[in-house]
Protein backbone atom coordinates (compact mmCIF):
# COMPACT_ATOMS: atom_id res chain seq x y z
CA UNK A 1 0.00 0.00 0.00
CA UNK A 2 1.40 3.34 -0.97
CA UNK A 3 1.10 5.75 1.86
CA UNK A 4 -0.23 9.20 1.19
CA UNK A 5 3.03 10.78 2.24
CA UNK A 6 5.25 9.01 -0.26
CA UNK A 7 6.34 11.52 -2.87
CA UNK A 8 5.43 10.92 -6.48
CA UNK A 9 6.58 7.38 -6.92
CA UNK A 10 5.30 6.96 -10.42
CA UNK A 11 7.24 9.86 -11.75
CA UNK A 12 10.45 7.94 -11.39
CA UNK A 13 9.14 4.45 -11.94
CA UNK A 14 9.97 2.95 -15.28
CA UNK A 15 6.70 2.35 -17.07
CA UNK A 16 5.86 -0.05 -19.78
CA UNK A 17 4.60 2.22 -22.50
CA UNK A 18 3.28 1.99 -25.97
CA UNK A 19 5.79 2.33 -28.82
CA UNK A 20 4.51 5.80 -29.67
CA UNK A 21 5.80 7.00 -26.36
CA UNK A 22 6.05 10.77 -25.89
CA UNK A 23 3.54 11.38 -28.64
CA UNK A 24 1.69 14.62 -27.95
CA UNK A 25 -1.88 13.64 -27.18
CA UNK A 26 -3.27 16.93 -25.94
CA UNK A 27 -2.06 20.46 -26.48
CA UNK A 28 -3.48 23.93 -26.19
CA UNK A 29 -2.42 26.75 -28.46
CA UNK A 30 -2.82 30.30 -27.27
CA UNK A 31 -6.02 29.21 -25.59
CA UNK A 32 -8.00 32.13 -24.21
CA UNK A 33 -11.45 32.50 -22.75
CA UNK A 34 -13.03 35.71 -21.70
CA UNK A 35 -16.29 36.02 -19.78
CA UNK A 36 -17.29 39.63 -20.15
CA UNK A 37 -14.71 41.55 -18.16
CA UNK A 38 -12.99 38.51 -16.77
CA UNK A 39 -10.11 36.91 -18.61
CA UNK A 40 -10.48 33.39 -17.28
CA UNK A 41 -7.87 31.78 -19.51
CA UNK A 42 -5.12 33.86 -21.03
CA UNK A 43 -3.01 32.50 -23.87
CA UNK A 44 -2.52 29.07 -22.37
CA UNK A 45 -0.02 26.74 -24.03
CA UNK A 46 0.41 23.32 -22.54
CA UNK A 47 1.54 20.00 -23.97
CA UNK A 48 0.51 16.64 -22.58
CA UNK A 49 2.32 13.56 -23.86
CA UNK A 50 1.20 9.97 -23.89
CA UNK A 51 1.69 8.36 -20.51
CA UNK A 52 1.83 11.61 -18.58
CA UNK A 53 -0.14 12.01 -15.43
CA UNK A 54 -0.40 15.73 -15.85
CA UNK A 55 -1.29 17.91 -12.91
CA UNK A 56 -2.95 21.23 -13.60
CA UNK A 57 -2.33 23.04 -10.40
CA UNK A 58 -3.60 26.37 -9.27
CA UNK A 59 -5.58 28.14 -6.59
CA UNK A 60 -9.35 28.36 -6.82
CA UNK A 61 -10.34 30.77 -9.54
CA UNK A 62 -7.15 30.27 -11.56
CA UNK A 63 -9.16 29.09 -14.56
CA UNK A 64 -8.58 25.37 -14.16
CA UNK A 65 -12.19 24.37 -14.56
CA UNK A 66 -12.60 26.73 -17.50
CA UNK A 67 -9.67 25.03 -19.24
CA UNK A 68 -11.25 21.63 -18.66
CA UNK A 69 -14.56 22.87 -20.03
CA UNK A 70 -12.70 24.13 -23.08
CA UNK A 71 -10.89 20.82 -23.56
CA UNK A 72 -14.14 18.88 -23.27
CA UNK A 73 -15.80 21.22 -25.76
CA UNK A 74 -18.43 22.47 -23.33
CA UNK A 75 -17.54 26.10 -23.97
CA UNK A 76 -16.02 27.94 -26.89
CA UNK A 77 -12.61 29.57 -26.71
CA UNK A 78 -12.42 33.30 -27.32
CA UNK A 79 -9.09 32.72 -29.02
CA UNK A 80 -6.79 29.80 -29.72
CA UNK A 81 -7.65 26.15 -29.87
CA UNK A 82 -6.98 22.73 -28.43
CA UNK A 83 -5.63 19.77 -30.29
CA UNK A 84 -6.44 16.22 -29.27
CA UNK A 85 -4.55 13.68 -31.36
CA UNK A 86 -4.82 15.79 -34.48
CA UNK A 87 -8.40 16.90 -33.87
CA UNK A 88 -8.91 20.56 -33.27
CA UNK A 89 -11.40 21.57 -30.63
CA UNK A 90 -13.90 23.16 -31.04
CA UNK A 91 -13.91 22.39 -34.79
CA UNK A 92 -13.74 18.62 -34.52
CA UNK A 93 -15.19 18.34 -31.07
CA UNK A 94 -16.91 14.98 -31.47
CA UNK A 95 -13.84 13.36 -32.99
CA UNK A 96 -11.71 14.72 -30.16
CA UNK A 97 -14.17 13.50 -27.56
CA UNK A 98 -13.72 9.95 -28.83
CA UNK A 99 -10.20 10.16 -27.46
CA UNK A 100 -11.22 11.91 -24.27
CA UNK A 101 -13.12 10.90 -21.20
CA UNK A 102 -13.70 12.93 -18.12
CA UNK A 103 -15.81 15.25 -16.11
CA UNK A 104 -15.92 18.84 -15.02
CA UNK A 105 -16.85 20.05 -11.54
CA UNK A 106 -18.65 17.22 -9.84
CA UNK A 107 -19.79 14.41 -12.07
CA UNK A 108 -23.58 14.33 -12.30
CA UNK A 109 -25.70 11.34 -13.24
CA UNK A 110 -29.36 10.48 -13.63
CA UNK A 111 -30.38 10.08 -10.01
CA UNK A 112 -33.33 7.72 -10.50
CA UNK A 113 -31.23 5.25 -12.47
CA UNK A 114 -28.74 2.70 -11.19
CA UNK A 115 -25.02 3.18 -11.70
CA UNK A 116 -25.00 0.44 -14.31
CA UNK A 117 -27.97 1.95 -16.12
CA UNK A 118 -26.29 5.36 -16.18
CA UNK A 119 -23.14 3.93 -17.69
CA UNK A 120 -25.18 1.93 -20.17
CA UNK A 121 -27.01 5.06 -21.27
CA UNK A 122 -23.84 7.13 -21.60
CA UNK A 123 -22.04 4.36 -23.47
CA UNK A 124 -24.94 3.92 -25.87
CA UNK A 125 -24.87 7.62 -26.64
CA UNK A 126 -21.39 7.44 -28.02
CA UNK A 127 -21.57 4.08 -29.71
CA UNK A 128 -22.38 0.69 -28.40
CA UNK A 129 -22.69 -0.24 -24.73
CA UNK A 130 -20.71 -3.29 -23.76
CA UNK A 131 -21.98 -4.91 -20.58
CA UNK A 132 -18.61 -6.48 -19.87
CA UNK A 133 -16.78 -3.19 -20.18
CA UNK A 134 -19.31 -1.54 -17.87
CA UNK A 135 -18.79 -4.27 -15.28
CA UNK A 136 -15.04 -3.87 -15.74
CA UNK A 137 -14.94 -0.12 -15.10
CA UNK A 138 -17.31 -0.47 -12.16
CA UNK A 139 -14.96 -3.08 -10.73
CA UNK A 140 -11.99 -0.78 -11.35
CA UNK A 141 -13.48 2.01 -9.27
CA UNK A 142 -14.79 -0.38 -6.63
CA UNK A 143 -18.49 0.11 -7.27
CA UNK A 144 -19.38 -3.42 -8.35
CA UNK A 145 -21.43 -4.06 -5.26
CA UNK A 146 -23.50 -0.92 -5.66
CA UNK A 147 -23.79 -1.18 -9.44
CA UNK A 148 -27.54 -1.72 -9.31
CA UNK A 149 -28.38 0.86 -6.67
CA UNK A 150 -29.83 4.21 -7.65
CA UNK A 151 -27.20 6.89 -8.09
CA UNK A 152 -29.47 9.26 -6.15
CA UNK A 153 -28.44 7.48 -2.97
CA UNK A 154 -24.71 7.59 -3.66
CA UNK A 155 -22.25 9.46 -1.48
CA UNK A 156 -20.12 12.20 -2.95
CA UNK A 157 -17.14 9.88 -3.10
CA UNK A 158 -19.08 7.20 -4.91
CA UNK A 159 -20.30 9.69 -7.49
CA UNK A 160 -16.76 10.85 -7.94
CA UNK A 161 -15.64 7.29 -8.58
CA UNK A 162 -18.57 6.70 -10.91
CA UNK A 163 -17.38 9.80 -12.74
CA UNK A 164 -14.02 8.17 -13.26
CA UNK A 165 -15.70 4.94 -14.38
CA UNK A 166 -17.69 6.96 -16.89
CA UNK A 167 -14.52 8.62 -18.13
CA UNK A 168 -12.88 5.22 -18.69
CA UNK A 169 -15.88 3.69 -20.36
CA UNK A 170 -14.81 4.00 -23.98
CA UNK A 171 -11.10 3.31 -23.32
CA UNK A 172 -10.09 6.87 -24.20
CA UNK A 173 -6.49 7.90 -24.79
CA UNK A 174 -6.72 10.66 -22.23
CA UNK A 175 -8.84 11.07 -19.18
CA UNK A 176 -9.53 14.55 -17.92
CA UNK A 177 -10.56 14.94 -14.29
CA UNK A 178 -11.53 18.16 -12.59
CA UNK A 179 -10.43 18.16 -8.96
CA UNK A 180 -11.24 14.48 -8.58
CA UNK A 181 -10.67 14.47 -4.82
CA UNK A 182 -12.50 17.68 -3.98
CA UNK A 183 -14.96 17.31 -1.18
CA UNK A 184 -13.85 13.81 -0.26
CA UNK A 185 -12.87 12.63 3.19
CA UNK A 186 -9.26 11.47 3.64
CA UNK A 187 -10.19 7.86 2.97
CA UNK A 188 -12.03 8.80 -0.20
CA UNK A 189 -9.14 10.99 -1.33
CA UNK A 190 -6.72 8.17 -0.90
CA UNK A 191 -8.92 5.77 -2.84
CA UNK A 192 -9.24 8.18 -5.75
CA UNK A 193 -5.54 9.00 -5.73
CA UNK A 194 -4.59 5.34 -5.66
CA UNK A 195 -6.93 4.79 -8.57
CA UNK A 196 -5.36 7.58 -10.62
CA UNK A 197 -1.88 6.34 -9.79
CA UNK A 198 -2.90 2.89 -10.89
CA UNK A 199 -4.21 4.28 -14.18
CA UNK A 200 -0.94 6.11 -14.66
CA UNK A 201 1.01 2.91 -14.08
CA UNK A 202 -1.10 1.21 -16.73
CA UNK A 203 -0.03 3.89 -19.18
CA UNK A 204 -3.29 5.86 -19.33
CA UNK A 205 -2.68 9.53 -19.92
CA UNK A 206 -4.36 11.53 -17.20
CA UNK A 207 -4.94 15.26 -17.05
CA UNK A 208 -6.18 16.37 -13.69
CA UNK A 209 -6.70 19.69 -12.03
CA UNK A 210 -6.10 20.29 -8.39
CA UNK A 211 -5.50 23.06 -5.95
CA UNK A 212 -3.46 20.78 -3.74
CA UNK A 213 0.24 20.73 -4.49
CA UNK A 214 0.59 17.74 -2.24
CA UNK A 215 -1.89 15.83 -4.33
CA UNK A 216 -0.18 16.66 -7.59
CA UNK A 217 3.10 15.54 -6.07
CA UNK A 218 1.55 12.28 -5.05
CA UNK A 219 -0.02 11.28 -8.31
CA UNK A 220 1.43 13.30 -11.17
CA UNK A 221 4.51 12.97 -13.31
CA UNK A 222 4.28 16.42 -14.87
CA UNK A 223 2.53 19.54 -13.77
CA UNK A 224 1.80 23.10 -14.68
CA UNK A 225 1.09 25.73 -12.08
CA UNK A 226 -1.49 28.21 -13.30
CA UNK A 227 -2.53 31.53 -12.02
CA UNK A 228 -5.10 33.84 -13.56
CA UNK A 229 -5.39 31.64 -16.60
CA UNK A 230 -1.67 31.62 -17.31
CA UNK A 231 1.00 29.00 -16.78
CA UNK A 232 3.60 30.17 -14.31
CA UNK A 233 5.76 27.06 -14.12
CA UNK A 234 5.62 23.82 -16.05
CA UNK A 235 7.71 20.69 -15.90
CA UNK A 236 8.26 17.29 -14.36
CA UNK A 237 6.86 17.24 -10.86
CA UNK A 238 10.12 16.40 -9.14
CA UNK A 239 11.66 19.50 -10.67
CA UNK A 240 8.76 21.65 -9.61
CA UNK A 241 9.47 20.92 -6.02
CA UNK A 242 10.67 23.95 -4.15
CA UNK A 243 14.27 24.75 -4.73
CA UNK A 244 15.68 21.71 -3.04
CA UNK A 245 15.25 20.56 0.45
CA UNK A 246 16.84 21.99 3.50
CA UNK A 247 19.63 20.08 5.21
CA UNK A 248 21.13 20.84 8.57
CA UNK A 249 24.88 20.61 8.61
CA UNK A 250 26.89 20.42 11.83
CA UNK A 251 30.55 21.39 11.28
CA UNK A 252 33.65 22.08 13.36
CA UNK A 253 34.38 25.47 11.95
CA UNK A 254 31.32 27.39 11.04
CA UNK A 255 32.87 30.61 9.65
CA UNK A 256 35.11 28.68 7.26
CA UNK A 257 32.27 26.39 6.26
CA UNK A 258 30.21 29.45 5.42
CA UNK A 259 33.03 30.70 3.23
CA UNK A 260 33.19 27.38 1.43
CA UNK A 261 29.45 27.31 0.89
CA UNK A 262 29.47 30.85 -0.44
CA UNK A 263 32.27 30.01 -2.83
CA UNK A 264 30.19 27.30 -4.48
CA UNK A 265 29.03 28.33 -7.88
CA UNK A 266 25.54 29.75 -7.38
CA UNK A 267 25.75 29.67 -3.60
CA UNK A 268 22.78 28.03 -1.91
CA UNK A 269 20.83 29.97 0.69
CA UNK A 270 22.38 29.29 4.09
CA UNK A 271 20.85 30.09 7.42
CA UNK A 272 22.22 29.48 10.89
CA UNK A 273 20.17 27.57 13.36
CA UNK A 274 21.95 27.25 16.69
CA UNK A 275 25.06 25.23 16.03
CA UNK A 276 23.80 24.08 12.68
CA UNK A 277 23.93 25.57 9.25
CA UNK A 278 20.70 25.15 7.32
CA UNK A 279 21.43 24.79 3.62
CA UNK A 280 18.67 24.65 1.06
CA UNK A 281 19.56 22.75 -2.11
CA UNK A 282 18.39 19.90 -4.32
CA UNK A 283 19.09 16.62 -2.54
CA UNK A 284 21.19 15.47 -5.49
CA UNK A 285 23.63 18.26 -4.80
CA UNK A 286 24.13 17.43 -1.12
CA UNK A 287 27.01 14.91 -1.60
CA UNK A 288 28.92 17.44 -3.67
CA UNK A 289 28.52 20.06 -0.97
CA UNK A 290 29.75 17.66 1.69
CA UNK A 291 32.72 16.74 -0.50
CA UNK A 292 33.63 20.43 -0.87
CA UNK A 293 33.50 20.90 2.89
CA UNK A 294 35.60 17.82 3.46
CA UNK A 295 38.06 18.91 0.77
CA UNK A 296 38.47 22.17 2.67
CA UNK A 297 39.38 20.05 5.72
CA UNK A 298 36.29 21.02 7.66
CA UNK A 299 35.02 18.32 9.98
CA UNK A 300 31.48 17.43 9.03
CA UNK A 301 29.82 15.96 12.08
CA UNK A 302 26.31 15.53 10.82
CA UNK A 303 24.15 16.15 7.78
CA UNK A 304 20.49 15.72 8.58
CA UNK A 305 17.36 16.73 6.69
CA UNK A 306 15.85 19.84 8.20
CA UNK A 307 12.12 19.86 8.76
CA UNK A 308 10.83 20.22 5.28
CA UNK A 309 9.79 23.61 4.11
CA UNK A 310 6.08 23.38 3.51
CA UNK A 311 5.43 22.66 -0.12
CA UNK A 312 2.18 24.47 0.27
CA UNK A 313 4.17 27.54 1.25
CA UNK A 314 6.05 27.46 -2.00
CA UNK A 315 2.88 26.97 -3.94
CA UNK A 316 1.31 29.91 -2.16
CA UNK A 317 4.40 31.95 -2.87
CA UNK A 318 3.96 31.25 -6.57
CA UNK A 319 0.26 31.63 -6.86
CA UNK A 320 -0.74 33.79 -3.94
CA UNK A 321 -0.25 37.51 -3.32
CA UNK A 322 -2.96 38.50 -5.71
CA UNK A 323 -2.58 42.06 -4.48
CA UNK A 324 0.83 42.32 -6.05
CA UNK A 325 0.66 44.09 -9.38
CA UNK A 326 2.41 41.37 -11.28
CA UNK A 327 2.35 37.69 -10.67
CA UNK A 328 5.58 36.81 -8.93
CA UNK A 329 8.10 35.64 -11.49
CA UNK A 330 8.74 31.93 -11.36
CA UNK A 331 11.61 31.38 -9.09
CA UNK A 332 14.36 29.91 -11.19
CA UNK A 333 17.11 27.98 -9.61
CA UNK A 334 19.69 30.67 -9.26
CA UNK A 335 22.32 28.54 -7.74
CA UNK A 336 24.01 25.44 -9.07
CA UNK A 337 27.01 23.63 -7.82
CA UNK A 338 28.16 22.93 -11.31
CA UNK A 339 27.58 25.40 -14.06
Amino acid at each position, binding site marked *: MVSDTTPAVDATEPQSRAPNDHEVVLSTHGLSKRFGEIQAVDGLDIVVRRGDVYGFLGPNGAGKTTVIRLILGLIWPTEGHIEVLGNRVPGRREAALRHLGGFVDDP*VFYAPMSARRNLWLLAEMSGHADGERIAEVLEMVGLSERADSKVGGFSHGMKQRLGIAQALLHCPDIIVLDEPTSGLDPGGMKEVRDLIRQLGRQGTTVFLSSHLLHEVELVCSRAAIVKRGRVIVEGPVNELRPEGMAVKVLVDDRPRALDVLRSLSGPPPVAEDGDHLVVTMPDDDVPEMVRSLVAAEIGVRAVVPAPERGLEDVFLELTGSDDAEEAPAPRKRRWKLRP
Partner: protein
Amino acid sequence: MKLLWLEIVKLRYQKRTWFGLGGLAVIPIVVTVALYLSSGPGEGGPTALPFIAGALKNGIIVPIVSLFGLAPFLLPLAASMVGAFTIAGEWETGTLKTVLTRPVRRGSLLAAKWGVAVLYVLAALLVVFVVSIISGAVGFGLRDLVTPVVSYTVGEALWLSFVAYLMALAVVVSVVSLALLFSTITGSSLTAAVMALVLVIVIQILLSFSYFDFLEPYVFTSYFTMWADLFQKPIVWEQMTRGLLCTSAWSAGLAGLAWWRFRQRDILI
Protein backbone atom coordinates in the same frame (compact mmCIF):
# COMPACT_ATOMS: atom_id res chain seq x y z
CA MET B 1 -32.53 7.46 -33.96
CA LYS B 2 -30.59 5.81 -31.18
CA LEU B 3 -30.41 9.08 -29.28
CA LEU B 4 -34.17 9.37 -29.64
CA TRP B 5 -34.59 5.94 -28.10
CA LEU B 6 -32.23 6.87 -25.23
CA GLU B 7 -34.26 10.01 -24.59
CA ILE B 8 -37.37 7.86 -24.32
CA VAL B 9 -35.55 5.67 -21.80
CA LYS B 10 -34.70 8.77 -19.76
CA LEU B 11 -38.25 10.08 -20.00
CA ARG B 12 -39.62 6.85 -18.60
CA TYR B 13 -37.65 7.40 -15.40
CA GLN B 14 -39.18 10.79 -14.72
CA LYS B 15 -42.23 10.95 -12.54
CA ARG B 16 -43.56 14.07 -14.24
CA THR B 17 -43.85 12.07 -17.45
CA TRP B 18 -46.52 9.90 -15.90
CA PHE B 19 -48.13 12.69 -13.93
CA GLY B 20 -48.54 14.69 -17.12
CA LEU B 21 -50.17 11.85 -19.02
CA GLY B 22 -52.34 10.95 -16.04
CA GLY B 23 -53.43 14.56 -15.56
CA LEU B 24 -54.47 14.95 -19.18
CA ALA B 25 -56.34 11.65 -19.05
CA VAL B 26 -58.62 13.08 -16.38
CA ILE B 27 -59.92 15.78 -18.73
CA PRO B 28 -62.19 13.55 -20.88
CA ILE B 29 -63.67 12.05 -17.74
CA VAL B 30 -64.45 15.50 -16.38
CA VAL B 31 -65.92 16.43 -19.75
CA THR B 32 -68.12 13.33 -19.79
CA VAL B 33 -69.42 14.06 -16.31
CA ALA B 34 -70.08 17.69 -17.26
CA LEU B 35 -71.99 16.61 -20.36
CA TYR B 36 -73.93 14.13 -18.29
CA LEU B 37 -74.98 16.83 -15.85
CA SER B 38 -75.76 19.49 -18.48
CA SER B 39 -79.24 19.66 -19.86
CA GLY B 40 -78.46 21.67 -23.00
CA PRO B 41 -75.69 23.41 -24.88
CA GLY B 42 -73.83 26.13 -22.99
CA GLU B 43 -73.24 29.58 -24.38
CA GLY B 44 -70.07 29.61 -26.42
CA GLY B 45 -67.67 26.77 -25.61
CA PRO B 46 -67.55 23.38 -27.25
CA THR B 47 -71.14 22.39 -26.69
CA ALA B 48 -72.23 25.29 -28.87
CA LEU B 49 -70.35 23.88 -31.90
CA PRO B 50 -73.06 23.43 -34.54
CA PHE B 51 -72.13 19.89 -35.46
CA ILE B 52 -72.53 18.53 -31.95
CA ALA B 53 -75.02 20.89 -30.39
CA GLY B 54 -77.84 18.58 -31.28
CA ALA B 55 -76.26 15.42 -29.90
CA LEU B 56 -74.94 16.21 -26.46
CA LYS B 57 -75.97 12.87 -24.97
CA ASN B 58 -73.82 10.84 -27.33
CA GLY B 59 -70.43 9.47 -26.28
CA ILE B 60 -69.08 9.98 -29.78
CA ILE B 61 -68.70 13.72 -29.19
CA VAL B 62 -66.53 13.41 -26.07
CA PRO B 63 -63.21 13.32 -28.04
CA ILE B 64 -64.13 16.53 -29.85
CA VAL B 65 -65.43 18.34 -26.79
CA SER B 66 -62.32 17.34 -24.84
CA LEU B 67 -59.99 18.54 -27.59
CA PHE B 68 -61.87 21.79 -27.83
CA GLY B 69 -61.59 22.23 -24.08
CA LEU B 70 -57.86 21.53 -24.08
CA ALA B 71 -56.96 23.67 -27.06
CA PRO B 72 -56.79 27.21 -25.68
CA PHE B 73 -54.81 26.61 -22.51
CA LEU B 74 -53.98 23.13 -21.32
CA LEU B 75 -52.44 21.92 -24.57
CA PRO B 76 -50.15 24.95 -24.90
CA LEU B 77 -49.29 24.54 -21.22
CA ALA B 78 -48.38 20.89 -21.61
CA ALA B 79 -46.43 21.62 -24.79
CA SER B 80 -44.54 24.48 -23.16
CA MET B 81 -43.55 22.32 -20.25
CA VAL B 82 -42.45 19.40 -22.37
CA GLY B 83 -40.49 21.64 -24.71
CA ALA B 84 -38.91 23.53 -21.83
CA PHE B 85 -37.72 20.42 -20.03
CA THR B 86 -35.78 19.16 -23.06
CA ILE B 87 -32.53 21.02 -22.58
CA ALA B 88 -33.18 23.10 -19.50
CA GLY B 89 -34.30 20.11 -17.44
CA GLU B 90 -30.94 18.45 -17.89
CA TRP B 91 -29.23 21.78 -17.55
CA GLU B 92 -30.70 22.20 -14.10
CA THR B 93 -29.73 18.77 -12.83
CA GLY B 94 -26.28 19.06 -14.38
CA THR B 95 -26.57 15.93 -16.49
CA LEU B 96 -26.36 18.00 -19.65
CA LYS B 97 -22.62 18.44 -19.23
CA THR B 98 -22.24 14.72 -18.55
CA VAL B 99 -24.02 13.97 -21.80
CA LEU B 100 -22.10 16.58 -23.77
CA THR B 101 -18.73 15.22 -22.67
CA ARG B 102 -19.65 12.07 -24.56
CA PRO B 103 -18.88 12.20 -28.26
CA VAL B 104 -22.40 13.25 -29.19
CA ARG B 105 -23.21 15.97 -31.67
CA ARG B 106 -25.03 18.79 -30.01
CA GLY B 107 -27.30 19.08 -33.01
CA SER B 108 -28.22 15.39 -32.85
CA LEU B 109 -28.91 15.64 -29.16
CA LEU B 110 -31.18 18.60 -29.68
CA ALA B 111 -32.96 16.86 -32.54
CA ALA B 112 -33.50 13.80 -30.35
CA LYS B 113 -34.86 15.95 -27.56
CA TRP B 114 -37.19 17.75 -29.93
CA GLY B 115 -38.29 14.39 -31.28
CA VAL B 116 -39.03 12.96 -27.88
CA ALA B 117 -40.97 16.08 -26.89
CA VAL B 118 -43.11 15.73 -30.03
CA LEU B 119 -43.63 12.04 -29.35
CA TYR B 120 -44.65 12.89 -25.82
CA VAL B 121 -47.34 15.37 -26.86
CA LEU B 122 -48.49 12.90 -29.49
CA ALA B 123 -48.76 10.25 -26.77
CA ALA B 124 -50.62 12.70 -24.56
CA LEU B 125 -53.11 13.46 -27.34
CA LEU B 126 -53.60 9.76 -28.02
CA VAL B 127 -54.21 9.12 -24.33
CA VAL B 128 -56.84 11.85 -24.28
CA PHE B 129 -58.38 10.45 -27.46
CA VAL B 130 -58.59 6.89 -26.16
CA VAL B 131 -59.81 7.88 -22.70
CA SER B 132 -62.45 10.12 -24.35
CA ILE B 133 -63.81 7.24 -26.36
CA ILE B 134 -63.88 4.93 -23.36
CA SER B 135 -65.44 7.45 -21.03
CA GLY B 136 -67.92 8.56 -23.71
CA ALA B 137 -68.88 4.93 -24.33
CA VAL B 138 -69.34 4.30 -20.62
CA GLY B 139 -71.28 7.51 -20.03
CA PHE B 140 -73.57 7.56 -23.05
CA GLY B 141 -72.68 4.75 -25.42
CA LEU B 142 -71.35 5.42 -28.92
CA ARG B 143 -73.99 6.10 -31.52
CA ASP B 144 -74.09 7.61 -34.97
CA LEU B 145 -73.70 11.38 -34.82
CA VAL B 146 -76.81 12.91 -36.26
CA THR B 147 -77.49 16.62 -35.88
CA PRO B 148 -79.49 19.12 -37.92
CA VAL B 149 -76.23 20.09 -39.70
CA VAL B 150 -74.39 16.82 -40.31
CA SER B 151 -74.66 13.10 -39.83
CA TYR B 152 -71.83 10.62 -39.42
CA THR B 153 -71.62 6.95 -38.64
CA VAL B 154 -69.67 5.99 -35.54
CA GLY B 155 -66.70 4.98 -37.74
CA GLU B 156 -66.69 8.24 -39.68
CA ALA B 157 -66.99 10.32 -36.53
CA LEU B 158 -64.10 8.49 -34.84
CA TRP B 159 -61.90 8.79 -37.91
CA LEU B 160 -62.60 12.52 -38.26
CA SER B 161 -61.95 13.02 -34.55
CA PHE B 162 -58.65 11.21 -34.90
CA VAL B 163 -57.61 13.44 -37.79
CA ALA B 164 -58.65 16.45 -35.69
CA TYR B 165 -56.26 15.33 -32.95
CA LEU B 166 -53.43 15.09 -35.48
CA MET B 167 -54.25 18.59 -36.73
CA ALA B 168 -54.08 19.85 -33.17
CA LEU B 169 -50.69 18.15 -32.88
CA ALA B 170 -49.35 20.33 -35.69
CA VAL B 171 -50.04 23.47 -33.65
CA VAL B 172 -48.80 21.90 -30.45
CA VAL B 173 -45.48 21.07 -32.13
CA SER B 174 -45.01 24.77 -32.84
CA VAL B 175 -45.43 25.49 -29.15
CA VAL B 176 -42.97 22.69 -28.31
CA SER B 177 -40.44 24.24 -30.69
CA LEU B 178 -40.94 27.66 -29.15
CA ALA B 179 -40.34 26.26 -25.66
CA LEU B 180 -37.32 24.34 -26.98
CA LEU B 181 -35.83 27.60 -28.20
CA PHE B 182 -36.37 29.29 -24.83
CA SER B 183 -34.98 26.18 -23.18
CA THR B 184 -31.68 26.61 -24.99
CA ILE B 185 -31.61 30.29 -24.11
CA THR B 186 -32.41 30.37 -20.41
CA GLY B 187 -31.23 27.07 -18.99
CA SER B 188 -34.14 27.17 -16.56
CA SER B 189 -37.06 24.94 -17.41
CA LEU B 190 -39.55 26.97 -15.42
CA THR B 191 -38.52 30.20 -17.09
CA ALA B 192 -38.60 28.61 -20.53
CA ALA B 193 -42.06 27.11 -19.97
CA VAL B 194 -43.48 30.35 -18.64
CA MET B 195 -41.93 32.40 -21.44
CA ALA B 196 -43.37 30.11 -24.11
CA LEU B 197 -46.80 30.01 -22.52
CA VAL B 198 -46.93 33.75 -21.92
CA LEU B 199 -45.93 34.42 -25.50
CA VAL B 200 -48.63 32.09 -26.82
CA ILE B 201 -51.25 33.77 -24.64
CA VAL B 202 -50.11 37.30 -25.43
CA ILE B 203 -50.28 36.57 -29.14
CA GLN B 204 -53.79 35.21 -28.71
CA ILE B 205 -54.81 38.34 -26.82
CA LEU B 206 -53.31 40.63 -29.46
CA LEU B 207 -55.02 38.74 -32.24
CA SER B 208 -58.37 39.38 -30.62
CA PHE B 209 -57.94 43.06 -31.56
CA SER B 210 -58.96 43.98 -35.05
CA TYR B 211 -55.79 46.00 -35.61
CA PHE B 212 -53.79 42.78 -35.69
CA ASP B 213 -56.18 40.92 -37.99
CA PHE B 214 -53.69 41.06 -40.83
CA LEU B 215 -51.30 38.90 -38.77
CA GLU B 216 -53.80 36.18 -38.12
CA PRO B 217 -53.03 33.85 -41.03
CA TYR B 218 -49.31 33.92 -40.26
CA VAL B 219 -49.27 33.06 -36.56
CA PHE B 220 -49.49 29.47 -35.38
CA THR B 221 -51.72 30.32 -32.43
CA SER B 222 -54.58 31.02 -34.85
CA TYR B 223 -54.88 27.37 -35.69
CA PHE B 224 -55.57 25.63 -32.37
CA THR B 225 -59.10 24.80 -33.49
CA MET B 226 -58.60 24.71 -37.26
CA TRP B 227 -59.73 21.08 -37.23
CA ALA B 228 -63.32 22.23 -36.68
CA ASP B 229 -63.53 22.63 -40.47
CA LEU B 230 -63.28 18.84 -40.76
CA PHE B 231 -66.85 18.62 -39.55
CA GLN B 232 -68.40 20.51 -42.42
CA LYS B 233 -69.91 18.77 -45.36
CA PRO B 234 -68.07 18.98 -47.66
CA ILE B 235 -64.84 19.49 -45.70
CA VAL B 236 -63.36 22.98 -46.17
CA TRP B 237 -59.63 22.44 -46.65
CA GLU B 238 -58.44 25.97 -47.28
CA GLN B 239 -57.95 27.09 -43.69
CA MET B 240 -56.51 23.74 -42.62
CA THR B 241 -54.00 23.63 -45.46
CA ARG B 242 -52.87 27.12 -44.59
CA GLY B 243 -52.70 26.11 -40.95
CA LEU B 244 -50.58 23.07 -41.60
CA LEU B 245 -48.18 25.07 -43.75
CA CYS B 246 -48.00 27.89 -41.25
CA THR B 247 -47.44 25.71 -38.18
CA SER B 248 -44.86 23.58 -39.98
CA ALA B 249 -42.95 26.69 -40.99
CA TRP B 250 -43.02 28.01 -37.44
CA SER B 251 -41.96 24.64 -36.01
CA ALA B 252 -39.07 24.37 -38.43
CA GLY B 253 -38.00 27.96 -37.93
CA LEU B 254 -38.14 27.88 -34.14
CA ALA B 255 -36.41 24.50 -33.91
CA GLY B 256 -33.77 25.76 -36.33
CA LEU B 257 -33.13 28.80 -34.17
CA ALA B 258 -32.87 26.55 -31.12
CA TRP B 259 -30.35 24.40 -32.97
CA TRP B 260 -28.29 27.43 -33.96
CA ARG B 261 -28.39 28.75 -30.42
CA PHE B 262 -27.57 25.44 -28.75
CA ARG B 263 -24.59 24.73 -30.98
CA GLN B 264 -22.78 27.83 -29.83
CA ARG B 265 -23.99 27.90 -26.26
CA ASP B 266 -21.37 27.77 -23.51
CA ILE B 267 -22.36 25.03 -21.11
CA LEU B 268 -21.48 26.42 -17.71
CA ILE B 269 -23.09 24.27 -15.10
